[in-house]
């Protein structure tokens, strides 16, 4: 197990290195630059800026400098938010995004798994159809629609929920709802189909033949197997909620990382692009490693190599 983890961590580090290298060269291929505005700044000022941030150097040299600094944990200074370092920006915004994404994942699991079970348990009956219709809607409605609808009804029309920032428990209601709708719906469907699949297997038939009650069969025997696909999904879901919450963060004015991730690209804020990409890659890779280890805990049949 220890050997396995070490191997996975080393592979993870290699993946991060490849992601960083590819991103570095790709972003420099995109036309435009960080110092673009409707009004051009004078050529002298542009050159001075390029010199200040080392953008006048050959790309390989810049790459080498960046990677050396990265190893020391220094992700450079933001090219657009003058005076702020990428480390500062990321580490002030990461907890906000993590908190929000974490709660959304918890909500999605807490609602999605039971709904999936109920649906599978009542297969073909009214409850099942009802839940499937809801889940399909949840998957089909993008977060920018649900966010705006929530904002419109609860923020503007009824004015019962606060709309700006995350300063109190009530502030979390709308953004968490908007973020959790899709994963909840997805988990519901995943859980349902997976449970139905497991329920058809021989060992369940054996359990029934032994005379066990349905409830015990589902909770003791079926769920442990059926939940595996859901756990696989949690890692990527957490990572994508953290950086993919651009729209939700924008609409509810949440100072999170998702906005930085998108705006750094449209602003060509090279150091921020690198910083946010590396953080995201690290998250996805870490989440996957953890999920792999969890597999082992849940399903002893799985051998870690």
């Amino acid at each position: 197990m220890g050997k396995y983890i070490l191997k996975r961590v080393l592979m993870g580090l290699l993946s991060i290195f490849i992601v960083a290298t590819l991103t570095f060269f790709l972003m420099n291929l995109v036309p435009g630059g960080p110092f673009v505005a409707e009004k051009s700044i004078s050529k002298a000022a542009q050159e001075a800026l390029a010199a200040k941030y080392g953008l006048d150097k050959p790309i390989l040299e810049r790459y080498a400098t960046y990677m050396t600094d990265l190893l020391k944990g220094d992700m450079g200074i933001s090219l657009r938010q003058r005076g702020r370092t990428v480390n500062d920006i990321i580490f002030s915004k990461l907890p906000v995004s993590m908190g929000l994404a974490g709660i959304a994942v918890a909500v999605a699991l807490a609602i999605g798994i039971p709904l999936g079970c109920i649906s599978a348990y009542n297969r073909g009956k009214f409850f099942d159809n009802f839940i499937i219709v809801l889940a399909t809607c949840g998957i089909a409605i993008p977060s920018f629609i649900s966010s705006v609808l929530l904002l419109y009804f609860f923020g503007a029309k009824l004015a019962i929920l606060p709309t700006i920032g995350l300063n109190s428990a009530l502030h979390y209601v709308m953004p968490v709802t908007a973020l959790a709708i899709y994963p909840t719906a997805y988990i519901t469907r995943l859980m349902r189909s997976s449970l139905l699949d497991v329920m058809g297997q021989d060992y369940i038939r054996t359990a029934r033949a032994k005379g066990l009650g349905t409830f015990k069969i589902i909770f003791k025997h079926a769920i442990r197997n059926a939940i595996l696909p859901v756990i696989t999904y949690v890692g990527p879901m957490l990572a994508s909620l953290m950086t993919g919450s651009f729209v939700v963060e924008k609409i509810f004015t949440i100072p999170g990382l998702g906005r930085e991730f998108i705006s750094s690209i449209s602003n060509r804020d090279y150091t921020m692009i690198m910083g946010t990409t590396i953080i995201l890659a690290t998250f996805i890779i870490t989440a996957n490693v953890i999920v792999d280890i969890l597999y082992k805990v849940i399903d002893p049949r799985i051998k870690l190599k």
Partner: protein
Amino acid sequence: MNIKKLIALIMAVVMVVCLSACGETTPSDNGGETGSKYADSITVQIGPNPETLDPALNSAVDGGNMLITLFETLLIIDQDNKVQPGQAESYTVSKDGLTWTFTMRDGLKWSDGSELNAKDFEYTFKRIADPELAAPYGETVVGMIDGFDKASEGDTDALNVKASEDGKTLTVVLAYPCSYFDKIVAFGTMSPVQKATVEANGDAWATSPDTYVCNGPYTIKEWVPGERIVCEKNENYVGGWDSEKIVTKTINFLLLEDSSAAYAAYTSGEALMIKDVPTEEIPSLTKAADGGDFYVDTILGTYYLSMNTQKAPFDNPLVRKALNLAIDRAYVADVIMQGTYTPAYNFMGPGIVDAEGMFIDNAKKDNGGKTYISEDFKANLAEAKKALAEAGYPNGEGFPTITYSTNDAGYHVAVAEYLQQAYKELGITLNIDKVEWASFTPLRRAGEYEMARNGWVMDYNDPSNMLELLTSTNGNNDGKYSSAEFDAAIESSKCADTADHFKYLHEAEKIAAADYANIPVAYYNDFWLQSPDLQGSWHSPYGYWYLQYAYVEAK
């Protein structure tokens, strides 16, 4: 049954987790101290998170709006757009227009309570010229000062700005006469910064309230990037604004990016004023003129189209004339842009001042009471067809298909689609090339386009700021328009005599209009929602809301 219990249990756990994860609630905004006539705080929205609040580094209008609230320049612009004494109580100009001497007010202070004098301004001006800092507006605001060429190469002491030994006066010597230098020193970029703070903290001094030392009516108390900036009344303020009228303790600036979020904040009463109004709400809003809360007001800017005059067929003035006159500006401004813009028939729009009166009024007077482009669209269209035929393309025959480049924001694509229709009338096919923002301006600047959307909002209220875009050497001359006659007129306008200055600028505008150097389409306006509760603030044609005197009466 058991499943239900389980669900209930899980949900209860989730709720507890949610509640415990969240912090304490913030105190509510409007309180009103007992006995005070005014509410303690007001909340407004004037733009998203500013990229920087360092006066020298800022180049955005929303950052500029913060700066006029936090800082005070040597001179300030009042409610009637007149230049008034700010940190300087008076100034004199030598006869040749080159030497400007500012006398400072007594008892000036920084927000940290320390003394402020002319030496701070000397440091500030030299810092702006420093190539190490790379201030985006450096050349615009200190480029006319003697010694700028040397200063911009690194020898900042070469900049001819000198504070007297006692710090009472500041003498600035210009390289050439600049009759509007009073407006330049009133520009936000010229706000003083404290040498000790800047040197101790580098660029980071302007990112944290602890090190943000300013000298205006308000200071920064809290800045949550991407969420809000809380400004607090500066008790150490001494300057041109009337301290008696600064009555609100805190101003909250909500840093909203999304217009529907801004609208929700306004309708729920959280914000008293919002700048970002969703365009889809505009038809349902009542204009202030009709007793409503939706305001539309002039700013000093023109939405125009650039044609690449170095490329055929745009090198032909007759073609440019045809493309110019085939546009129904009233339709574009009133229908496509929902009345949030004003149709533009001259390049220089309303609000721009002249030696006497308004520049646009005097331009009309010179031109027989008419704008350079007629307001009669039908006649224009007939003229356009005629001009195109004269250019050798009757009914557009033989005219190449042209490409119009624009980024996708605001009304830009809607305008592009209108142009497609309008030019079809001339028999011209226009393709739209939507370009992503960060690539768009470099493409336009490099001249890699045929026709492109363009726009300019003025930095200071002098027509030269916009007309100079058309001089052949200007970095923002995207159309690559080049006319020796026009360049000469602009050069002559750089004189000490105000009357002459404007005379030559009128001449320059006339030359560009006769050449159809570009296609003015509409004048920019600011449009915003403001609650009747918010009093004492005003909007200036620079695109700023002055909030120092803003108040809400306590209920």
